[in-house]
Structure formats: structure tokens, C-alpha cells
């Protein structure tokens, strides 16, 4: 679902299987005595996350503080994470699924409920993320980052601000200069949103309506990108691209001619969360690690490295002005206010989205 620039940039490595190898951090200081943590668990932790999605010193800081060695493995998509845990937990203690997959995995009984008593730093979380619809009461997950989909565009090649989904889905004004994300669910939900529906609760009639619209629009679309839309925009292959704000924020530092807008119809929010998968061998260490990541200073260090929006109020307060008030990292306005999280509404709907996308591409 939420593949971001860094994931996609490193998909070369991911494709080569390097990512799957898993990198062990913190082995350089083996002389240090390992202190046992609560529950007498082994001082180890298996962390399964996205590539380049952690602060530079976060893991070594955690080891210094608790003596727990974090063994980090990487996945490239939520589907990969889901597929890996589908047949049972192979030994991961903490995973980082996106909101829709938090819902999917909790429904599939793949997650362990969180013990809030062990996560006092939950108090640092912004109010908007304390009780989200996809995880009422934060029973299964803690927020790590969040993102919003919108239109990244090249200012010099576009008239005004393309502040509507119309320019991507229903107009030939920018013929051949548009790239859409190839995620069927995202495209279907946003298409429905443009047609005046909610991003959730799509029925077959709505899906068909969006499919027809996109088949009509297809001659104007240059490509469905595999979340490398920001690269295509930067390289000048296209001038408008459906992407996440974090991705566009990163390339804006390289090219001042690029900007980002959340269309006025509203968009899709996305939040990557920290969860403990069922069957995790070291749940106490896992809770300690999640609590550590939610610490203000630790969160700020992470945000500094990965520059994604943080749902951590304490961390944001510690960040410099250029991050805190960046209008792309923290968008505001009518489109953003109307944005919602996508809900997981059953395997049938997922299949229907996918069939629709196959139809659009085959048309």
C-alpha cells in the first residue's frame, strides 16, 4: 500500500533479495554485558519494517539503553508482510503494517493486543491519532508515521494548481503527462471520491463507474507507476503524478519546480503502525521497543532521518521550523480536511478492486 520514495528507490536492492537478508545491527559492541529485561526474555528483538524507515542511531540507542539487540529485516510492500505472516509468525516481535493492514491482520487474528500500561509514551501521540477508526482504542497498533495521497506536479508545466482529481481521472488537459499509482484500492477509492462517493463502502456499481471513467481516461495516462512516481516527475517523464506527500517533499528539496496538492475533493490518509504479531517470541521487549520509538527525542531523530510526517506531538515539537511547518509534509486546507483513512472491507472487495484494475489495463 504505502510504498514511499525510499522504498521504491531501493526496490533495486529489494529485488535482488538483499533486503530479505536482514541486517543485524549493533553487533559491533559485543563485549558489553547483556542485561536481561522484564520477563527474563532473551535480550534480542526481531523487527520487520520498511527500508530506510528508522533513525540513524535509533537501534544502537535502544541497545545502549536496554541492552536489547534489534535484528532488523525489511519488506517492500504490505502484501509481502502479510504473505510472510500468513502461514504463522516466523519469529518477528515488532512489525510495521499500514492502517488497512492493521485492520486486515487483526481480523485475521494475526496480531497480539497491546498492553498500554507498558507504553506510557502513548501520551506523546497527537490527539488525531489516539483513537482512529481503523483501530478503536489503539488495541492493536501504535502510530509510527502517516501520509496522504495527492497530486505531485511540475509547476512550470501545469496551469495554476491542479487542485482536483479531475486532472488525473477525467480530463485530457494533460494528455500523456499523467502517472497514476498502480495500487488498485487507492485508485478505485480516489476515483469514487472524485465521483462524489466516500473512499469507503464502495459497492460494485461504484467500482464499475470508476472503471468506466478510467478506461475512458486511459489514453491520457502515461503509466501506472510502482510507487516511483516521484522519480518519474523528477526525471521529466510526466508532469502530474498520484503520490504520497512524503515522497514529493523529498524531491522538492532537489527540484524547486515541483509542488504537491491535496485535491479539494478530499483524499486518502495512510498511517504506518507498530504492531506485535501473534506468536511473537519476546512480547516484553517488543512493548519496550514500541514505547522507545514513541519517545519524543527518539521520534524526532527518526523524523529527521526519514522526513515523513510524524504523528508524535512531542517529536514534532522538537523538530526545526522547516519540518514542523512544511506545507507538504503537514498539508492543510479543504482537501486535507475531507481526507479519510481507507478501511479494509473484506477480501471480496479487494478482489473486485483488483479485477477492475486488470480490466482497465486490458482495455
Amino acid at each position, binding site marked *: 500500500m504505502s510504498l514511499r520514495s525510499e522504498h521504491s528507490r531501493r526496490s533495486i536492492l529489494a*529485488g535482488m533479495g538483499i533486503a530479505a537478508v536482514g541486517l543485524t545491527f549493533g553487533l559491533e559492541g559485543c563485549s558489553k554485558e547483556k542485561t536481561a529485561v522484564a520477563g527474563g526474555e532473551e535480550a534480542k528483538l526481531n523487527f520487520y519494517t520498511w527500508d530506510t524507515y528508522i533513525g540513524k542511531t535509533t537501534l544502537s540507542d535502544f541497545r545502549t539503553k536496554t541492552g536489547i539487540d534489534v535484528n532488523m529485516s525489511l519488506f517492500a510492500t504490505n502484501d509481502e508482510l502479510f504473505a510472510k505472516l500468513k502461514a504463522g509468525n516466523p519469529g518477528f516481535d515488532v512489525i510495521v503494517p499500514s492502517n488497512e493492514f492493521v485492520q*486486515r491482520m487483526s481480523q485475521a487474528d494475526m496480531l497480539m493486543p497491546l498492553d498500554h500500561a507498558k507504553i506510557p509514551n502513548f501520551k506523546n501521540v497527537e490527539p488525531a491519532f489516539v483513537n482512529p477508526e481503523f483501530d478503536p482504542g489503539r488495541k492493536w497498533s501504535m502510530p509510527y508515521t502517516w501520509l496522504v495521497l495527492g497530486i505531485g506536479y511540475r509547476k512550470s508545466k501545469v496551469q495554476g494548481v491542479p487542485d482536483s482529481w479531475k486532472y488525473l481521472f477525467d480530463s485530457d488537459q494533460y494528455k500523456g503527462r499523467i502517472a497514476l499509482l498502480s495500487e488498485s484500492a487507492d485508485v478505485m477509492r480516489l476515483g469514487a471520491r472524485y465521483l462524489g462517493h466516500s473512499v469507503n463502502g464502495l459497492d460494485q456499481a461504484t467500482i464499475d463507474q470508476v472503471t468506466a471513467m478510467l478506461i475512458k481516461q486511459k489514453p491520457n495516462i502515461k*503509466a501506472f507507476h510502482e510507487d516511483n512516481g516521484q522519480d518519474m516527475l523528477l526525471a521529466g517523464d510526466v508532469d502530474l503524478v498520484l503520490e504520497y506527500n512524503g515522497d514529493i517533499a523529498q524531491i522538492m528539496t532537489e527540484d524547486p519546480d515541483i509542488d504537491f496538492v491535496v485535491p479539494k475533493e478530499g483524499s486518502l490518509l495512510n498511517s504506518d503502525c507498530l504492531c506485535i504479531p501473534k506468536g511473537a517470541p519476546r512480547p516484553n521487549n517488543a512493548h519496550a521497543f514500541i514505547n522507545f520509538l514513541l519517545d519524543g527525542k527518539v521520534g524526532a531523530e527518526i523524523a529527521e532521518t526519514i522526513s515523513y510526517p510524524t504523528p508524535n506531538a512531542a517529536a514534532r515539537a522538537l523538530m526545526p521550523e522547516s519540518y514542523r511547518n512544511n506545507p507538504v509534509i503537514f498539508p492543510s486546507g479543504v482537501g486535507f480536511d475531507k481526507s479519510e483513512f481507507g478501511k479494509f472491507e473484506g477480501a471480496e472487495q479487494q478482489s473486485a478492486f*483488483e479485477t477492475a484494475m*486488470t480490466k482497465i489495463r*486490458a482495455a
Partner: protein
Amino acid sequence: MSGENWRQERKTLLATLGPPLFWLTLFFLVPLAVVWAYSFGRNVGLTEIEISGTFANYAQAIQPLYLGIFFKSMLMAAACTVICLIAGFPVALAITFAPDKAKAWLLLAVMLPFWTNLLIRTYALIAVLRNEGYINLTLGWVWKQVGLVLNVPPFVPLEMLHNNPAVLFGLVYVHLPFMVLPLYAALDRLDRSLIEASLDLGAGHFRTMMLVVVPLALPGILSGVLITFIPALGAYLTPDLLGGPDSQMIANVIERQFKRANDWPFGAALSFLLLYLTFVMVAVQALIQRRRGAR
């Protein structure tokens, strides 16, 4: 005496065949059987697959939508194979007639791309073909030089990426060695005195090629065609990265069933349809070979 010998040889045979057979069974046939079983199953909840013996997945897979994609993939693979054959035959011929020293180097040059990962090579192609890629930058520069002398309209980059020709180009680029190597193997075994005889007896070069070389090299051509067509038919990375909105091939659809759609039974059914197609093609090739052998 001879019986003992046979028994001994059988032991040797078992000892040599045993490990690879075991390997093949455990890591190829068993997983394949599991996927085959999935193709007769259905999703129960989000994580379970019940093998119910249903044919629903195959019924879904032979809907016009998916048959159309199969057909398109076969068309792409066929076009790729034809181009590879036309481009690869002269190359294989040139290597055959090259001096022995050069031969080794030329063969190495053909195989060199295999030393680099396919994904890396595909990304390199993107860098070459994109609007601000190396080809367009070069053309743009030349255009600018011309513009200094003549009055020409501004340079419009050629659209070489994100369309079907780009996919075809990528497929040919990737699969050309698969064609050249079997062709070379066949041509190298050719009895050159036959070619000389043909030329001596008055046939031109082209006639000699078509009436002597090609028929003799036919087994090599057939295996080259097969070994190019089959992987091209299942190509997944190339259409994904170089293709446009309508460049999907069957492997892309299959991949999405296993990942995004989380519909393994349907993905398994599509995979096995592809496998059956491949079986048919291998069988046809074997049949042609046998008929030639009988003649």
C-alpha cells in the same frame, strides 16, 4: 558376471541420480503440487485456503478478460521470438565463422549481460530510454547544433518508454542471448563441406543459407525459439517497469493475485494454465523433432 556388472552400474546410477532426483522432488515437484492443489481451492477467511476440488478458478481464468491477456502475452512473446531469431541468426553465424580466438570473446560478450541482475539491466534501460534519458539528451544536443545553422522547431523528446514497443524492446534485449546460444551450438556442429559443396555447385549465398544451413540448423532453431518464447511469455518485470497503462502481461496479473488481491487459488489456476500452454509447446517441439528423426 555381466549381471553383477549391471547391478554395480545400477548402484552407480542410483548414487548419481539420487541426490538430484531428491532435490527435484522436494524443492520443485512438491511445491508445484501444492500450487496445483491451490488451483482447486477457495479462500476461507483471510489466511486459509480450503482445497474443495472446485473448478471455479479455472472457470474464472478462461473468461474473455483473462483469455485476452493470455493472447496478448503470446503475441508479445511471439513478436519477441521472431525478432530475436532474425537478429540472433546472423550473430550466431558470425560467431561460428569467427577465428577460434575471437570466438571465445564473442561468446563471452553474448553471455555478459547474464552477469548483471535483470532488474539492474531494466533500470539501466529506463535511464537510456526515458524522456530525459541518454538517447533523447544526445538527440537534443544534435538538434541544438543543427539549430545553430538552420531554423528548426524546438526539440520534442521521443516517447520511447511506457508503451508496448518499449516492452518489446526490453523483451528482445533480455532474451537475445537465449536465442543466440542454441543457434550457435547448432551452427557450430554443421559440416562445413556441405556449405562449400553448395557454393561450388552454383547456389548463391542466400540460397545456400536457406536450403542448406537453415534446414540443418533447424533443431537448434526450434530449441532457440522455445527457450526464448517460454520465458518471454512469462515476463513480468519488463512489462511492469517499461510498459505503459496497457502493457500488462499474464505474469503481472498472476503476481497481483498472489500479492495485492490475496487470491492464491485464482493465481494458481492462472499459473497452471500458463504451464499447460508451455507443456503443449514442448510437446509440439518434441513431435517435430521425432518426425524429422524418423524421416
